[in-house]
């Protein structure tokens, strides 16, 4: 099965920048002193360099003759950023104009109010004919799967990455960030325990037939995952599902409280409040610098995102079987 190439945008502003988002600039060619005025040692600025590096890997797929044929559109990580029905409609027609397939991405940890937003968008997509033609909907909340099955059975549900609870070992790829293993009251040699742990971190819940069979019964035939350095154990039949990987941004953790919003109301850094969010994440990043972990971690709004480095190379070299690459030219928030 040929790899399908999708591109993912969280809103129309970003989608309208698609051409520019795919334009490569070689930051390495900027004189180093000069480069520092745009790209200082600030975790927030790592995003731009990372995005251009990702384009070089995307180019490898283009060279193999692949082209984008699917638009992913929507918001996974914050219900305050869910695009409205007008944007949904525009994005759908945008994909039609390009002759692409369409996937509406819904979010995780939706409140009842968030669910209402999703329902309005599904209603709009139904109205414009997306359901009738079998467009996809990524669900990251089990409540969304329930309403899809009940009210919108024409959409193809895709199990989203937020519902994949696999441990992300991305923080422990580089020395000296060793795999943390508390070796207390254990009889087995440490090396063997760690080997078993890494194998366990690759062996995800989907590998249980009881679970995957029920997903099939509910019409779930596609799953999207994050790339992890330990890899993901997948049976030969691929769970009977097509598998998509997001690249280059994965998430390590996410929340409803938000450090970026905490800059405007300190309590929002820790608590969920009734006050509406002014959405400062659309203007600036607010990232933690974690000195022992010299890795590209960026906090965008509610989500701690990580840029996939060397461990993602096999995904571009045909060494790992999967069916879809979901390219994120920006952190999708």
């Amino acid at each position: 099965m040929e790899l399908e190439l999708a591109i993912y945008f969280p809103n129309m502003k970003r989608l309208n920048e698609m051409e520019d988002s795919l334009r490569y600039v070689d930051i390495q060619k900027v004189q180093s002193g000069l480069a520092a005025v745009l790209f200082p040692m600030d975790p927030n600025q790592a995003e731009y360099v990372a995005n251009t590096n990702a384009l070089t890997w995307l180019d490898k797929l283009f060279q193999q003759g692949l082209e984008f044929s699917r638009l992913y559109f929507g918001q996974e990580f914050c219900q305050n950023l869910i695009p409205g029905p007008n944007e949904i409609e525009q994005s759908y027609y945008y994909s039609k104009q390009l002759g692409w397939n369409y996937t509406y991405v819904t979010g995780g940890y939706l409140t009842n109010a968030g669910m209402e937003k999703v329902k309005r968008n599904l209603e709009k997509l139904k109205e414009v004919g997306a359901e009738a033609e079998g467009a996809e909907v990524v669900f990251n909340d089990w409540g969304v799967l329930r309403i899809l099955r009940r009210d919108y059975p024409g959409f193809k549900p895709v199990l989203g990455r937020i519902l994949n609870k696999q441990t992300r070992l991305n923080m422990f790829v580089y020395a000296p960030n060793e795999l943390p293993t508390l070796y207390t009251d254990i009889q087995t040699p440490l090396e063997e325990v760690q080997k078993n742990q890494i194998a366990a971190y690759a062996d995800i819940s989907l590998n249980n037939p009881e679970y995957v069979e029920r997903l099939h019964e509910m019409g779930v035939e596609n799953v999207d995952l994050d790339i992890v350095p330990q890899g993901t154990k997948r049976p030969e039949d691929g769970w009977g599902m097509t598998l998509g990987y997001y690249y280059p941004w994965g998430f390590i953790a996410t929340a409803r409280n938000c450090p970026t919003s905490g800059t405007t109301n300190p309590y929002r850094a820790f608590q969920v409040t009734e006050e509406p969010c002014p959405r400062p994440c659309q203007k600036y990043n607010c990232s933690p610098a974690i000195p022992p972990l010299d890795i590209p971690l960026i906090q965008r709004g509610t989500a701690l995102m990580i840029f996939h480095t060397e461990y993602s190379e096999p995904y571009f070299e045909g060494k790992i079987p999967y069916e879809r690459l979901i390219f994120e030219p920006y952190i999708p928030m």
Partner: protein
Amino acid sequence: MFMTLGLGSSDTPSNVAKFIELGAKEFFIGYVPRAWLDKFGWEVGPNRRTMGPAYNYSNVSELRDIVKGIHDYGGTVNLAVNAHDNGADRMGMVHDMLDLFETLNPDGYIVADPAVMYCMKKWGITREMHISTGVGCFNSEAVRFFCEEFKNITRLVIPRKLTINEMKSIIDGLKDLKLEYEVMIIGYRCYFNDEDCHSIHSGKRRNLCGDVLSAHFTSTNRFPSNWKDVVEYMIEHPRESLNEGSPVDKFRKEWLATTPPPYPNFEYKCAGCQGVDGELAHLMFQTCGLCAIKYLRQIGVEALKVPLRGDEETKLNVVKTVSQVMNAENPTREFCRSLINSDSFCNSKFSCYYEVPEEDK
């Protein structure tokens, strides 16, 4: 309303007697079988407390004793099998573990992973099941999804990151279901959503949230959209880039025209405050939802979770404090604050588990 209290491996039946005397009625515990431990270590655990021996029983006889002890003293006990992700290789051991649990006659299981739920169904385990906070049911539809799939669900553990009004909306939307509702009320509040944090909990190093909470945060404006044009100019015109009015000059001025607000300082301010220092109160209570209890009671929450597995130093005092609020007819803000006895802690709203409207406190 009642309290459900987490027990660690050092808790004995005689401790349970004390906790019951202080107001706890229900308990939850975790267990890591020896065979599991020798294969996977502590970090890949069958529940969410994978930080080492203090958090879980790992000896069958101690497990039997504590479950029996709880029942003998009139309490109830639920077993936490709420690891988020359980591959097929582990599921056989989960099955063995549940077979053992069934012989102990616990009152229920706390489960997070749908794969475990479907397996339990297949294995014929029909004992009461609580939807762990690790499932992440933030809306009524999600709760209904699980209640339709698994008829033995009797309780929803409401995720931490919801406002009281959002919780009310969920509960009000599920009046036709016979469900109990449980909330976390005190102790460590995960920085990220528990169910959406995919790093490692280990006793070997600080957790990811510890890294983040102790990190220095920097706020930086995102680039104006023409940044690639500017980079190309810098490549082609490195010398001219330094001139006033160059695209680089203009870009930086636009980019830095406003300074984003800094990340707040979350230190406790003690000057002129009565009672114990805020940091010390934080060590005792960590995050506190006492002021919210009367509102939680009003919206239909019945169970208050005190998740202190492994926190043996503070447990007795915290249980006593929660119990006093839980049993008070009208636990006002002033009453709760008098029990905490730290103006510094209580004046810092980031100490609060939930937002409670000022006018209603």
